[in-house]
């Protein structure tokens, strides 16, 4: 049983466009929702994270939108750049438990 479902599996966006990646989860007890960015040949790195007490968090061009009632959260990348091309993973966590990762989205930004 997948605790978090990520979509789409792959995404192609033109430079300057908005990239949107979605995640849906089942357990309402999850209380920490991070996004990780992974470049080829590297391990994932924490990009941005949100707690369920806020509906949105913005850091530069990256924004997490959180919909608690729908049990969904999404990553928005504004003014997408070729350097944003990477694989993105959402994750969920309950308290001090392990992170549960989504399936990953391979993002390609065309110049």
């Amino acid at each position, binding site marked *: 049983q997948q605790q978090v479902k990520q979509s789409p599996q792959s995404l192609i966006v033109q430079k300057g466009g908005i990239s949107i990646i979605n995640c849906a989860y089942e357990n309402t007890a999850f209380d920490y929702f991070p996004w990780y960015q992974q470049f080829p040949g590297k*391990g994932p790195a*924490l990009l941005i994270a949100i707690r369920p007490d806020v509906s949105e968090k913005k850091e530069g061009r990256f924004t997490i939108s959180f919909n608690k009632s729908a049990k969904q959260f999404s990553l928005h990348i504004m003014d997408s750049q070729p350097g944003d091309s990477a694989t993105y993973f959402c994750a969920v966590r309950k308290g001090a438990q392990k992170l549960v990762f989504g399936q990953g989205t391979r993002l390609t930004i065309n110049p």
Partner: protein
Amino acid sequence: EADIYQTPRYLVIGTGKKITLECSQTMGHDKMYWYQQDPGMELHLIHYSYGVNSTEKGDLSSESTVSRIRTEHFPLTLESARPSHTSQYLCASSQAGTDYGYTFGSGTRLTVV
């Protein structure tokens, strides 16, 4: 600089050989993890540790074993490598009670021929 180190970065080895993938972190994190990942694909947790002398199997069944004798060191061992073990292995660490998430190493790309 606090970081997490994995060695070797690349390893090509013959079937039946015993191998140990090294992982060390300098951040004093109490929790450490091993993930298996085919390039650009899902992360599969194979082992984790919440402290010295504590190890647990992850969600993906693995023929590997781990040990945690020191806080900073979490090696993964394959007693007899097989072609099906060909993959990327990522080590990560985290500190309880923080929202700094996981810090990942750059991984070991293992090829068993």
